[in-house]
């Protein structure tokens, strides 16, 4: 650990419309070391890294390298300065070969005309040897496992002489063996003097590879120190503060009968094993059950099984004790299941349709006689839900894309509620909305539960699951690994969510 500072940010502020993602951040990146970055979803980790990688620019503040101020207007500027980033979502081309992927955008050319495939292959082979991988340069990328693809991404960054390498949740899709390889690669790069930024939710992993740790909360740095002497309670305190934000019940919790039960739900994973591994759970009327898990734990996949998105899934489900036999979404909605998807843009809304049309999309049957749609009744119902959920809009006829994230989320909730569900499934209900809107969404969830709705929400936000749940279930590697009552402390929940690797291998 040399500890020489290779890059630093002073007073970094980043403002997005409606939110301040970074509020005066001072960050030092040390060379020849692993700089670990932790924080909840939305704490600003990704924004900070995007700023360093030139994908975003700071609203205020400066970036310095070797004592001199630098400005990265584009990703190319950052690459030139020796900064490489491996995003959580891989940016690769499955239709091209490994070598083509590594050199995409900076292909070596002969005489300015054709691609020098020989040198491309030679450099790729050298990179793969450096990374201890037995991957031929002309292997099509889609023949590789996800873990190997991740290695290709790293090779891509290294091929551009990256002196600083940012890894955003690199292990979320890796098997245990692949994680070990990655750690060896990291150790080797470190010894070559590369400065590594390592973002992860898996605290045991961070403790193992990290040399320096920086904790972010709500866009501010709440802790920064060498890793020696750091323990999980210290990290958790820095991550979520001494006191969690609370959304207390206004009424005493009254739970009714069981409204939803899932038994032995399975979803096979491509290439063996299960993405959802015999999950059983139940939700009672008026109960909010929080399903906590890290990236890749199988949370979203489980909800998709419930919503009939995976024909290959197995297991049985019951609504109010009656078996759920419907095989399509419309049938399951009719039985009282409603889903609020994680990705509003992709799954939740039809962006170019009006607010009204989005609200009523799942419940057009309410206004239809024979084939005829009663537009007046539809408009009245839409307006009613706009008022009930206090959605702030100018006109229900405007396209839903013109709304802010929080209001869009309320439209999605409104659409789900209009189907008169018995059980509400919410996937990351506060993703991508600001703190004020978050509190309002949580308040809405509380109210709905008080009215007798069963709510099952999944989240990777520890704060959220602790504050909202009447009961906490923890999911790891597709299995339920813990069940806790409300009031459980954070460290216990985290421990259940990150079973150690040894245990995995035995299983």
């Amino acid at each position, binding site marked *: 650990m040399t500890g020489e500072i290779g890059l630093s940010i002073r007073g970094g502020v980043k403002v997005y419309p409606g939110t301040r993602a970074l509020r005066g951040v001072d960050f030092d990146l040390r060379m020849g070391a692993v700089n670990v970055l932790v924080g909840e979803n939305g704490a600003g980790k990704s924004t900070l890294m995007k700023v360093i990688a030139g994908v975003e620019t700071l609203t205020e503040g400066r970036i310095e390298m070797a004592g001199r101020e630098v400005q990265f207007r584009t990703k190319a500027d950052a690459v030139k300065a020796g900064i490489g980033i491996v995003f959580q979502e891989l940016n690769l081309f499955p239709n091209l070969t490994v070598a083509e992927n590594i050199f995409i955008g900076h292909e070596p050319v002969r005489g300015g005309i054709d691609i020098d495939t020989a040198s491309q292959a030679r450099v790729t082979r050298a990179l793969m040897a450096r990374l201890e991988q037995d991957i031929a340069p002309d292997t099509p990328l889609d023949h590789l496992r996800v873990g190997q693809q991740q290695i290709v991404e790293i090779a891509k960054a290294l091929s551009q002489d990256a002196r600083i390498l940012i890894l955003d949740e690199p292990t979320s899709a890796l098997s245990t063996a692949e994680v070990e390889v990655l750690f060896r690669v990291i150790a080797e790069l470190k010894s070559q003097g590369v400065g590594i930024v390592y973002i992860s939710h898996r605290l045991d992993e961070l403790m193992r590879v990290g040399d320096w740790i920086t904790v972010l909360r709500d866009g501010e740095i709440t802790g920064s120190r060498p890793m020696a002497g750091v323990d999980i309670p210290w990290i958790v305190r820095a991550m979520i503060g001494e006191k969690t934000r609370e959304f207390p019940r206004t009424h005493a919790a009254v739970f009714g009968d069981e409204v939803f039960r899932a038994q032995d739900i399975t979803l096979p994973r491509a290439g063996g094993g299960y993405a959802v591994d015999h999950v059983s759970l139940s939700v009672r009327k008026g109960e909010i059950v929080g399903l906590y898990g890290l990236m890749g734990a199988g949370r979203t996949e489980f909800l998709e099984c419930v919503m009939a998105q995976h024909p290959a899934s197995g297991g049985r489900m019951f609504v109010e004790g009656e078996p759920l036999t419907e095989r399509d979404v419309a049938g399951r909605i009719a039985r009282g299941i409603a889903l609020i*998807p994680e990705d509003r843009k992709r799954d939740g809304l*039809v*962006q170019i349709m009006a607010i009204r049309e989005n609200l009523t999309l799942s419940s057009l049957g309410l206004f239809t006689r024979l084939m005829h749609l009663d537009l007046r009744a539809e408009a009245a119902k839409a307006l009613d839900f706009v008022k009930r959920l206090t959605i702030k809009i100018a006109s229900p006829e405007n396209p839903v894309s013109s709304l802010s994230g929080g209001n869009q989320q309320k439209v999605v909730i409104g659409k789900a509620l209009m189907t008169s569900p018995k059980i509400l499934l919410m996937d990351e209900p506060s993703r991508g909305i600001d703190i004020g809107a978050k509190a309002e969404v949580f308040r809405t969830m509380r109210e709905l539960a008080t009215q007798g709705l069963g709510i099952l929400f999944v989240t990777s936000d520890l704060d959220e699951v602790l504050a909202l749940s009447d009961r906490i279930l923890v999911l790891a590697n597709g299995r339920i690994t813990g069940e806790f009552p409300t009031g459980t402390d954070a460290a216990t929940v985290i421990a259940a969510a990150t079973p150690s690797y040894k245990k995995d291998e035995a299983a």
Partner: protein
Amino acid sequence: MTALVAPTQQNWLLLVLRLRTFVALILVLAYFSVMAPNFLTAANAVIVSKHVALNALLAIGMTFVIITGGIDLSVGSIVGLCAMVAGWLVLNGVDTGLGYTVWFNTIEIVGITLAVGIGVGLINGLLITRLNVAPFIATLGTLYIARGAALLSSGGRTFPNLGGSEEMGTASFPLIGTGTLFGLPVMVWLMIAVALGAHYISRRTPLGRHIYAVGGNERGAALSGVKVNRVKLFVYAFSGFCAALVGIIIASQLQAAHPATGETFELNAIAAAVLGGTSMSGGRGRIFGTIIGAFVIGILSDGLIMMGVSSFWQTVIKGVVIVLAVVIDQAQSRLQASVALAQEAAASR
């Protein structure tokens, strides 16, 4: 309210842009009325509307398909195939192979031919939904298959003399393409009926709403309980229905069926839909917009003919108009989005 310097001016611009196809229609009408003296006469209006009716019928079916985010290249071939089917039935009946031939009357022939068109449309729909073939490729395939079948039916020859006969109950067959009702050609009435029906479906039925939702966000629609595959089957079947209707009208009008009937009709139908404001990326479009689009194209070509403009220039002008329409469409959606954004930003404050 600071961002909106001149909201009224902006709203006016938006209104003009929204009604742009209509504005274009008025402009071409006014232009040809002045330039071509015989243009604005009742007799000419009937002729033009007959030309427009066929393209408009195809374009109505095409509009639904494009709104779902698809494309139907096979309509021209379905026109040809259905013209041949109708011609065959009028001329030859169906040989049962048992030593006697079954003959059909006009209504039965129309019914069978429409069923053939719907059937080809359903094949398109099944290829796209069940076998996951891209709409462009699936309908390109049926374009060739249907055209080939039309050619095979007669060995490439024309079925002549489709005048029909009292005896077989087919004497009324020519009326579909040549008859008039209350002063308007029957085919124009057919266009009006199909347009009204399609408009009703698009605006006042759950099916119509689902068509827009599928085109706007297929995954989101599916997760909202929309039966995406059924919606797609419907739009391709409906497009096949419209094409069959056009095939029948043409066979009836000419009292002859030629296997090359309807070649490149699909392109004119797409042009009318796009000119009428249908977005090729799906989710947006209106039946009445398409009808006006068809009229603009029809009036443009007939007017230019009457002015004696070379047909080569006509082709160029048509192309320019279509590209222009799409450019203006882009400007309108950008302006509309920014107005809505400003309104909503003000409301959430």
